[in-house]
């Protein structure tokens, strides 16, 4: 029944957008960035990265009217982390309808999108203004979670409720349980098969069992304080599907953020079980990841400290120091040092932002 609802629901925003396109003057905008990056040698999780890499990300926004539009997020990169079809592709593609009943706001989004929960990936194209690489929690979400379905958000004054019905993401949970956590910014693209180990892959596009997943969230937004709670259940059946094993994952997240014009303190904590069947047995792994970051902003610069704590079978911790400087308009120079267990990674990056 959830699948039937999802199929019908996906058609709604697409239909509305097409209908309005016939009667409006559409607007097409694009924006994105190019980056060049150098990193110290880091071969082991969670710091694995290429020594030299480049990437480009572009967002295409087409708005039939201020209320109805569509977005495509394209990614191209040299560092594919040994994935299949991981060099270039579509990270997001969705259509959206916005309504303002009375003083409220209702947003319906249909397609493939990042779950709107992260307190660090708060810029367009799921960029973070705080660090080059994301926390273990959001690195995982960028690699292995991309709801393909419909999301509805209702905002009333300071409170907001959201719900998502999605397909795909049947392998969500494999990476932290088998490969381990990472501290990275590899946003997988649709259709990409990302390596879990020597035998298996994970893919946000994997839909093997015909069962829709769901997510629900609630948030409260004060003048400076923001609180949010989220639950995700991909309803995976945990069965073997060749080199794409399904994992059944239920994951909860609580988040808080306190911000002023200069300072931001943000924290998220997520936990839950993930399971897979093997040799007739059910294997359950409890996974968890948390972080807290403190960031200070100046006119043309920002500095951030982030502490990560994450685990599955083993416990790990990491400390990240990052600094950005934007000397002229579209350029951003960034540096990041990460210490995880007894390993270090130093990263330098030049990022160029562009927009229509």
């Amino acid at each position: 029944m959830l699948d039937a609802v999802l199929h019908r629901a996906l058609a709604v925003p697409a239909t509305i957008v097409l209908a309005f396109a016939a009667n409006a003057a559409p607007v097409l905008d694009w924006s994105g960035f190019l980056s060049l990056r150098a990193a110290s040698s880091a071969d082991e999780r969670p710091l694995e990265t290429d020594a030299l890499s480049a990437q480009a990300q572009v967002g295409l926004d087409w708005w039939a009217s201020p209320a109805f539009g569509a977005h495509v997020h394209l990614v191209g990169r040299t560092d594919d982390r040994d994935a299949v079809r991981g060099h270039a592709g579509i990270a997001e593609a969705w259509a959206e309808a916005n309504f303002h009943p009375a003083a409220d706001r209702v947003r319906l989004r249909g397609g493939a999108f990042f779950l709107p929960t992260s307190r660090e990936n708060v810029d367009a194209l799921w960029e973070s203004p705080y660090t080059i690489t994301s926390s273990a929690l959001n690195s995982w979400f960028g690699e292995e979670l991309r709801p393909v379905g419909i999301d509805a958000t209702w905002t009333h004054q300071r409170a907001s409720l959201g719900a998502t019905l999605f397909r795909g993401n049947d392998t969500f949970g494999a990476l932290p349980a088998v490969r381990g956590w990472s501290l990275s910014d590899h946003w997988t693209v649709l259709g990409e098969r990302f390596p879990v180990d020597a035998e298996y892959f994970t893919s946000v596009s994997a839909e093997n069992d015909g069962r829709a997943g769901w997510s629900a969230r609630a948030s409260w937004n004060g003048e400076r304080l923001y609180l949010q709670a989220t639950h995700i259940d991909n309803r995976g059946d945990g069965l073997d599907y060749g080199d794409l094993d399904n994992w059944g994952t239920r994951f909860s997240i609580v988040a808080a953020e306190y911000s002023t014009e200069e300072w931001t303190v943000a924290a998220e904590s997520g936990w839950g079980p993930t399971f897979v069947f093997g040799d007739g047995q059910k294997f359950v792994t409890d996974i968890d990841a948390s972080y807290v970051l403190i960031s200070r902003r100046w006119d043309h610069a920002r500095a951030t400290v982030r502490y990560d704590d994450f685990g599955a079978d083993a416990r790990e911790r990491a400390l990240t120091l990052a600094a950005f400087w934007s000397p002229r308009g579209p350029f951003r120079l960034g540096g990041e040092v990460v210490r995880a267990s007894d390993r270090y990674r130093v990263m330098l990056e030049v990022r160029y932002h562009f927009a229509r």
Partner: protein
Amino acid sequence: MFRIVCLLALMLASTAVLAATLTVRVRDGRGASVQDAVVYAVPEGRSVAPPKRVAVMDQKNRMFVPHVLAVQTGTAVKFPNSDDIRHQVYSFSSAKPFQLPLYKGTPSSPIVFTTPGVVTLGCNIHDRMSAYIVIVDTPYFATTAAGGQVTLDDLGAGRYAINVWAPGVRDAPAPVTVVLTDGERRDLTFDTRKGK
């Protein structure tokens, strides 16, 4: 020269003495003060001067600042983004539907609001951002602060329709007509009820 300066000062003082002062308090159904209510006095039977200033609706710390911006019809409004992340400001209110592209800094052209009414703003990137621009056909307006009170102290003698708009209130209180004389000081209180 000294006589000219004295004469000018006397003329200015005379103008200030002639202006009427209207103090308006806005409170909700429980008697509490209402913040961010727009109080505006529309003169009846005479034209008003066109707007001169450019207003600003900023984006700071992923919030619109101010939450409620009152402007006279015909005012240009700038939308600077003071954050180091991008915003995509939009409105689909009938008084002024528009959409700005994703941007940091200040868009090249301000937007001119030529139709009286209320414009609801949002950001397509950040759901929690919302604000209002209230466009009124008069230069006599002010927005209440935490105390729920404003003073309009530059009103000439004449007849005015006093109106109040407050966010979250579906049915605005009925306008009150006042006739002000030179130098008069008048107090008014408006009660609002939250819409359902």
